[in-house]
């Protein structure tokens, strides 16, 4: 525990850690000092001069070094000038006065100065209603302007910084919060100031504009309506919005979100999600959210949503009743006996997956996880211990990232790992090519695609890097699926688990293995017992298949072929997909925003989400549909209360023992204090009132010996001449069904690409931007060439989920 300091603010005594800034100490004492440029997550700059207060310190006798006493109290010496509360750290015996006439006069003066150039846009400004400047003007500002309206400086009003963020230069008060967020938190200095004095303006320094996946956060912390999102522009007034707690479903980080909803005429009178806002959880996403999580929500309200059950009649899908649809499915599943296969994805909630697994078990079928990433058994075994918080890692700790581009796969983890590195944690990035995280890494390890396991094993041998890792107080390993398929990831996970075990970094908080999964709840699927299958096409062929929450037909022509030969196909999904088109029965499911449930994040944190909007059509939650089918098969599964399903799950799966919905909804006080009335302090992030979630205890933490199963890695593929080794990489904005309905992201999604080394490109006679045909193993597709000189000449990087079905490294022809 660091040194504690006691000070008095407005007569209130408070003890805070040494080094705390006066503005933050006041916040802890429940006193709001007005701020604009200060943000508890950013370094102090003292620019806006809003937080002017009177600060006094005990007077010291120069000769003796003793505190001068007066009437039995230390004599306090006040500075002649007002001081900024945001730049002055606390000191013992300090006296801060925030309400004196002098301080008030200073604060009023600053507001008046800010308003001289600020336009009167409040009635139409997106920030109006949750605007720090509005609030502080009401509280501290002068009632009337002494500045002549005609003399206001006019600047550009509608400037797109990028396609996602709009800037209104007139509204900007030059607090630099956005610039500082990009510099300090995101580590991408894509914004900057141009000009000086009153002409100071925010500009984007990148091409394309505002090239960061964290851009939306700047609109949260902007203390005026200068930065607004293209998504929410004129969407609604903030006070008209309802808020409901939720969990982001786009990646395994499990960011806590708040869905803002409103009934809308444009949407035909439906209640729709107007925007997704971060909800504070200092152990998961702090107060941030990536742009995918913020802007990709449109699939929920998509026109392609399935609204009614359908049955195939005369080669065509026709509307049917729930009874008929589930009955048909049940009959076929029962008839198929052992040939009953469930294919489910990590897009589903824990309860859905648990019911599916139970159905498969009772009916004698198989439940397969639709994923090309293995190692979930190992994360359950040697995953990060309960109590892990990436935000606490720092000096003396180590983080190893293997075969993963966190920036693209799990942006908030990138952000948190980057900040841990800033705090002094040794970051080691092992990846065949340079990723954005390399810039912050203490060590970068390069290996060839295919040599992942060797790279991890070599790491275990003696070297400066491995020493640092072994000696670290805490160590966490992230493993991903860059350049790897199912077998490859399983092998890498096993090697990483070995490494952690050997160095003693298991079974404790802030130590262990984290899988950078492709879907939000892949970890949860592993927990309830679903596992992926190496040869999926074979496993599906000729079977009665129950496909839930995934689109194998659209993803992979091989699977499409396998499903053509399936006995019976029931598809349960939220959206129309290529797979629903070939289905015998289509069962409409509810999206995460329409129901309750839980997800298990990559850090194995179980978190609740809540219903925010009414269900689409007749759709039902997945676990209900499964129980309806089960009922027709004479299997009893809970199908009314989601919390009861969770209770049953908790009773039958060891890691979940003692968990309940009530427990998951518990909250603790968090720092910084955000999301209350004072939007000026922490931004518009929501306060967490709906649960911080509970981290599962990995087997290694429970005790007993830990045995790590060996995985045999398939031989490294060496392509023939005139062939390239096509390897899958992960892209944040892909063509997944939960992304593509968000038109705003189209530009960032772009076209399918293939990255080649300049040499390889030269050999093929193509230049950047050229269109090539890439074909392998019965799959072919067109892609645009990108040149990347950080990769080796023999490989071609093909992003997953961009139209070319690549699951693992393959030898490919590029023309």
């Amino acid at each position, binding site marked *: 525990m660091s040194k504690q300091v006691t000070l008095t603010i407005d007569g209130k005594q408070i003890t805070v850690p040494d080094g705390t800034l006066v503005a933050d100490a006041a916040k802890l004492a429940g006193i709001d000092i007005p701020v604009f440029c200060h943000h508890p997550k950013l370094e102090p700059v003292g620019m806006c001069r809003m937080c002017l207060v009177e600060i006094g310190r005990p007077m010291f006798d120069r000769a003796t070094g003793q505190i001068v006493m007066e009437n039995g109290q230390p004599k306090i010496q006040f500075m002649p000038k007002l001081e900024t509360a945001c730049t002055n750290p606390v000191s013992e015996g300090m006296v801060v006065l925030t309400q004196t006439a002098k301080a008030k006069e200073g604060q009023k003066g600053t507001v008046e100065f800010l308003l001289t150039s600020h*336009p*009167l*846009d*409040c*009635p*139409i*400004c997106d920030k*109006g209603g949750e605007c720090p400047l509005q609030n502080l003007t009401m509280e501290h500002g002068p009632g009337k302007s002494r500045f002549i309206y005609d003399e206001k400086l006019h600047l550009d*009003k*509608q400037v797109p910084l990028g396609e996602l963020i709009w800037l*209104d230069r007139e509204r900007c008060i030059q607090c630099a919060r956005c610039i500082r967020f990009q510099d300090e938190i995101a580590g991408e200095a894509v914004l900057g100031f141009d000009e000086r004095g009153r002409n100071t303006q925010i500009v984007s320094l990148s091409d394309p504009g505002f090239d960061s996946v964290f851009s939306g956060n700047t609109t949260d912390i902007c203390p005026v309506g200068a930065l607004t999102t293209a998504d929410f*522009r*004129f969407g*609604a*007034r903030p*006070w*008209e919005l309802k808020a409901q707690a939720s969990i982001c479903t786009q990646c395994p980080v499990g960011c806590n979100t708040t869905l803002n909803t409103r009934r*809308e*005429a*444009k949407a035909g009178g439906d209640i729709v999600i107007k925007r997704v806002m971060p909800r504070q959880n200092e152990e998961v996403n702090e107060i941030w959210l990536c742009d995918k999580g913020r802007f990709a929500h449109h699939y929920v309200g998509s026109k392609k949503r399935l609204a009614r059950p359908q049955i195939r009649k005369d080669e065509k899908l026709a509307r049917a009743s729930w009874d008929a649809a589930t009955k048909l499915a049940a009959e076929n599943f029962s008839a198929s006996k052992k040939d009953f296969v469930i294919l489910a994805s990590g897009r589903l909630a824990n309860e859905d997956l648990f019911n599916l697994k139970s159905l498969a078990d009772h009916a004698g079928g198989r439940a397969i996880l639709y994923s090309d990433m293995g190692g979930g058994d190992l994360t359950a075994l040697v995953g990060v211990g309960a109590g892990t918080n990436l935000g606490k890692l720092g000096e003396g700790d180590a983080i190893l990232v293997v075969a993963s581009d966190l920036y693209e796969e799990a942006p908030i983890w990138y952000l948190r790992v980057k900040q841990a590195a800033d705090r002094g944690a040794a970051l080691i990035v092992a990846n065949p090519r340079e990723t954005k995280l390399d810039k912050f890494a203490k060590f970068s390890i390069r290996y060839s695609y295919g040599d992942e396991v060797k790279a991890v094993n070599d790491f275990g041998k003696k070297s400066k890097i491995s020493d640092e890792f072994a000696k670290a107080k805490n160590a966490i390993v992230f493993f991903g699926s860059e350049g790897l398929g199912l077998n490859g990831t399983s092998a890498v996970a096993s090697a990483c688990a070995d490494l952690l075990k050997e160095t003693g970094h298991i079974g404790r908080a802030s130590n262990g293995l984290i899988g950078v999964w492709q879907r939000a709840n892949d970890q949860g699927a592993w927990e309830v017992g679903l596992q992926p299958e190496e040869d999926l096409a074979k496993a599906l062929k000729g079977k009665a298949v129950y496909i839930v929450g995934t689109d194998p037909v659209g993803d992979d022509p091989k699977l499409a072929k396998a499903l053509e030969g399936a006995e019976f196909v029931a598809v349960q999904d939220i959206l129309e997909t290529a797979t629903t088109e070939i289905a015998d029965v289509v069962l409409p499911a509810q999206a995460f925003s329409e129901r309750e449930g839980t997800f298990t994040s990559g850090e194995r944190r179980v978190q609740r989400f809540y219903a925010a909007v009414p269900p689409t059509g007749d759709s039902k939650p997945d676990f209900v549909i499964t129980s309806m089918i089960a009922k027709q098969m004479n299997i009893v599964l809970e199908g009314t209360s989601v919390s009861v399903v969770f209770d049953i799950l908790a009773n039958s799966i060891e890691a979940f023992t003692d968990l309940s919905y009530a427990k998951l909804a518990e909250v603790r006080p968090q720092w910084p204090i955000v999301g209350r009335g004072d939007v000026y302090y922490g931004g518009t992030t929501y306060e967490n009132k709906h649960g911080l979630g509970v981290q599962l205890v990995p087997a290694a933490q429970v005790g007993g010996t830990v045995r790590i199963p060996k995985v045999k890695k398939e031989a490294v593929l060496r392509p023939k001449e005139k062939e390239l080794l096509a390897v899958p990489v992960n892209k944040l904005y892909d063509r997944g069904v939960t992304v593509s309905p968000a038109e705003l992201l189209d530009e960032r999604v772009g076209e399918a690409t293939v990255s080649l080394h300049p040499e390889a490109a030269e050999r093929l006679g193509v230049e950047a931007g050229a269109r090539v045909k890439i074909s392998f193993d019965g799959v072919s597709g067109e892609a645009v060439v990108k040149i990347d000189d950080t990769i080796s000449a023999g490989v071609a990087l093909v992003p997953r989920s961009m139209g070319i079905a690549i699951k693992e490294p393959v030898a490919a022809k590029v023309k």
Partner: protein
Amino acid sequence: MSVLEPVVELVRGLGQTFRYLFDRPVTYQYPEQKREVRPRFRGRHVLKRYDNGLEKCIGCSLCAAACPADAIFVEASENTDEKRFSPGERYASTYEINMLRCIYCGFCEDACPTEAIVLGDNYELSFTDRRSAIYPKEMLLEPVPTVDMTTPRKVETGVYKRSVPEMKDPTD
């Protein structure tokens, strides 16, 4: 008590009645004859236009926020120079008032920053069902002065650059 007393009383009463025969009647022959409303009368709402025909409403929803009866529903959209409704950045793409809910308090008028919504003189509101009590924007909007001033209309680029049209302090 005199016998005549009832007669006297009767005559007095009838006299009163008789006198009123020559007074100006207070009743109006509504609907043929309509009484002029007071200057501050609060009747059916009107959405005003500027002299050039552009709508005053900027879709800020402050009227809806001020409405104690929750009778107003506003939804905004963005103006473009191709399709311009109002001089500012945004306009009301949906504007509805539920006249059954409205209590004619005039708070909306007070809240309006552009003096777009005004409670007019019309008090003759009748509906045959609840649905028709909801007045959409088309009904509320003032008619355009001349045909070429309809909204939306195409305007020259760069003329309307402000977020909110410049306003004077309310005069009354």
